[in-house]
């Protein structure tokens, strides 16, 4: 007795009329990516669903892999068996035994497309229900209105199919179906989480990182590449734009009063990010900001900083508490990397008491004495693009494999 296929349902996509085909194609690509280690499995699609034909691959391992693919609402593994009634009975019991969670109630719903089958739907429901009750005496009860498991039996000419278990998928929309945005990736705990949440809603993302040697170290850059590698889980690879930021940062320190340096730094980062966004034809900028978390993330600060661009700035974490964000970072497996203690573009040069309520007119006035345009253009020009594949080691790990 073997599991034959897995049924994949996509929730929200089915409601999107015109873009549907491109949505489904994107989802298909991502399921294929998730199935990369299961060579025998084949993916087919119909209007409402997709099917993974297992061809002998382990269904539980596959479900574990594709559960995380954005755009999948739910999954159901299905058994394929012969048309012998005893075999169907045994299979029904087996199906119950391999469920991923405990159930207390069930019902059987038979669909008979082959009318020559010796038992009709009622007889089938009765036979199988009775068999399960006898074998799971005291454990399972029948509930036809609201069962934990609706065991679906489909009798066809060529075989009988059993399904019914519904496993929740990650939800969301398929990667790339919402367009492209640039994620500002500092190396901290928040920005990678913001990246994952954006991808969940169908955004394709590229990362921007500000690098200020010698004020920030090679290690902080490696840390960012490690985080990008984690983000690459969704799509297989991730692009990181590394912006040389030393010169601008030094100029800010020289020209802007100390308690406004932070505000100005963020404004310039945003301007550069926007210029890169335009080059990459993306439509938004994503940050890991959470309201009131630090001085640059107060409402006044955001007002003064956001003023430099009119591009939408998406802040998926805006209403989350730090602990909630940490919880998600652990789930996405980025917390340990983010938690390494290297100076990054956000921590180095932090003034002792940055303005929590900076005034827009003031920061505009201070910046008016310096011509940043040329420097911004240079920084964009000199930005280095690195691409990292999922599973690739960024930190030079793996280069000394022969030592291990």
């Amino acid at each position, binding site marked *: 007795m073997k599991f034959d296929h897995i049924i994949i349902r996509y929730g929200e996509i089915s409601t999107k009329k015109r873009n549907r085909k491109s949505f489904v194609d994107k989802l298909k690509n991502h399921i294929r990516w998730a199935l990369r280690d299961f060579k025998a499995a084949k993916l087919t699609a119909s209007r409402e669903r997709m099917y993974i034909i297992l061809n002998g691959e382990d269904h539980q391992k596959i479900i574990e892999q594709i559960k995380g693919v954005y755009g999948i609402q739910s999954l159901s593994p299905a058994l394929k068996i012969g048309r012998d009634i005893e075999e169907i009975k045994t299979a029904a019991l087996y199906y119950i035994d391999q469920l991923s969670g405990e159930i207390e109630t069930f019902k059987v719903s038979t669909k008979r497309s082959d009318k020559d089958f010796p038992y009709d739907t009622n007889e089938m429901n009765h036979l199988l229900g009775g068999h399960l009750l006898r074998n799971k005496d005291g454990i399972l009860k029948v509930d036809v209105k609201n069962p934990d498991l609706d065991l679906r039996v489909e009798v066809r000419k060529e075989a009988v199919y059993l399904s019914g278990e519904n496993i929740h998928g990650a939800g969301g929309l398929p990667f790339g179906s919402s367009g492209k945005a640039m994620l500002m990736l500092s190396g901290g705990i928040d920005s990678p989480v913001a990246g994952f949440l954006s991808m969940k809603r169908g955004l394709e993302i590229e990362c921007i990182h500000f690098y200020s040697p010698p004020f920030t170290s090679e*290690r902080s850059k*490696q840390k960012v590449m490690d985080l990008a590698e984690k983000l690459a889980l969704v799509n297989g690879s991730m692009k990181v734009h590394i912006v040389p930021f030393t010169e601008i940062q030094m100029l800010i320190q020289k020209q802007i009063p100390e308690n406004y340096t932070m505000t100005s730094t963020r404004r310039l980062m945003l301007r550069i990010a926007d210029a890169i966004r335009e080059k990459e034809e993306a439509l938004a900028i994503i940050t890991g900001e959470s309201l009131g978390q630090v001085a640059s993330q107060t409402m006044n600060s955001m007002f003064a900083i956001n003023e430099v661009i009119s591009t939408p700035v998406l802040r998926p974490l805006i209403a989350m508490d730090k602990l909630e964000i940490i919880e998600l970072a652990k789930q996405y497996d980025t917390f340990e990397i983010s938690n390494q203690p290297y100076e990054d573009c956000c921590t180095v040069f932090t003034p002792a008491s940055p303005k929590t309520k900076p005034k827009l007119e003031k920061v505009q006035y201070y910046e008016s004495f310096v011509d940043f345009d040329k420097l911004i253009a240079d920084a964009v020009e000199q930005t280095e693009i690195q691409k990292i594949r999922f599973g690739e080691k960024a*930190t*030079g790990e793996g280069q*000394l494999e022969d*030592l*291990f």
Partner: protein
Amino acid sequence: MIYFDNSATTKPYPEVLDSFIKVSTEYFGNPSSLHGLGAKAESLLTQARRQVADLLHVKSAEIYFTSGGTEGNNLAVKGIAHAYSKRGKHIITTVMEHASIKETCQLLEEEGFDITYLQVDSNGFVSVEDLKNALRTDTILVSVMSVNNEVGSIQPIVEIGHLLKEYPQVLFHVDHVQGIGKVPLDIATAGIDLCTISGHKFHGLKGTGVLYVRDGIRVSPLFTGGNQEAKLRSGTENVAGFVALARALRLTLQKSAQDYGKLIEIRDMLLNGLNEITGVKINSPLHGAPHIINFSIPGIKSEVFIHALEEKEIYVSTTSACSSKKKSISDTVLAMFHDQKRADSVIRISTSYENELYEVEFVLQEIKNTLLKLQKVMR
């Protein structure tokens, strides 16, 4: 030379020594240094930690490098006792633990902790029932070794872990120093909270070890200082040693997957051969670890026998190496059989995947010869 004392220590694999020398010469930086050399050393340490974690099927952050079994056991028992003393002051262990547990517990007794020492039966096993009865509301820790270092009895670790899942306030430490690579144990699913292993018992180097500490458990450190190893063990990391340990662990687990059958064959051949020799009493339990064979020759002092075999370049041991210099009597064998003469004449053979079947034949023959010679003299 026939080396049959692998539970005392093992000969480092040549590959392991290569790694140690290469890391020591080329990547000698301090992992805490900010420059590139430091970064390289740190990256090697991270990689070693990840490899050990992967091999043990646990998380990287749960692996703490130590100097070996004794430190691991001290850190686990004292660390838990001191971190959780507000919760209770009762600890349960067994009468046949390694000295690094036994002595540590005795020290804690002086500090006001209450220790229960579980008895073992004639097979060297503790009973889960006894353990259950010994549990109290103020019990904070149970520490049981997976494989006894003297006779090789395998304790019911999985069952104990299962029982203790019902007592979430009781933490479970396993001294797995003798078991690693020889007796399979899945740390993560067995309900184990802390687990000690030591590098030199699986062809790594002396002065290296690992303490597994499950995520979320507080352990109070033995050393304070530079806060290395996530504050649990201050002191500059022995990067070369830990890279060597990671490699030794990989090689050992690989050999264990390939050569487990050989180890069993060697044990069976030894047991059968020893059983045929009159005057020899086997102390190891029938279903014990595959690499430890313990026997007594009542009437003949173990030390004499050891030296007699040594003349033939056969290296075996009396009791555990750690206590064999102080006294020749084996507490473990005494606890199992309550027989002074038997405990006084204990010989332990301990093998590894590096031993071969032909060595067994030779050793058995020499044991017979030596016995004949000594029995004439020592009547």
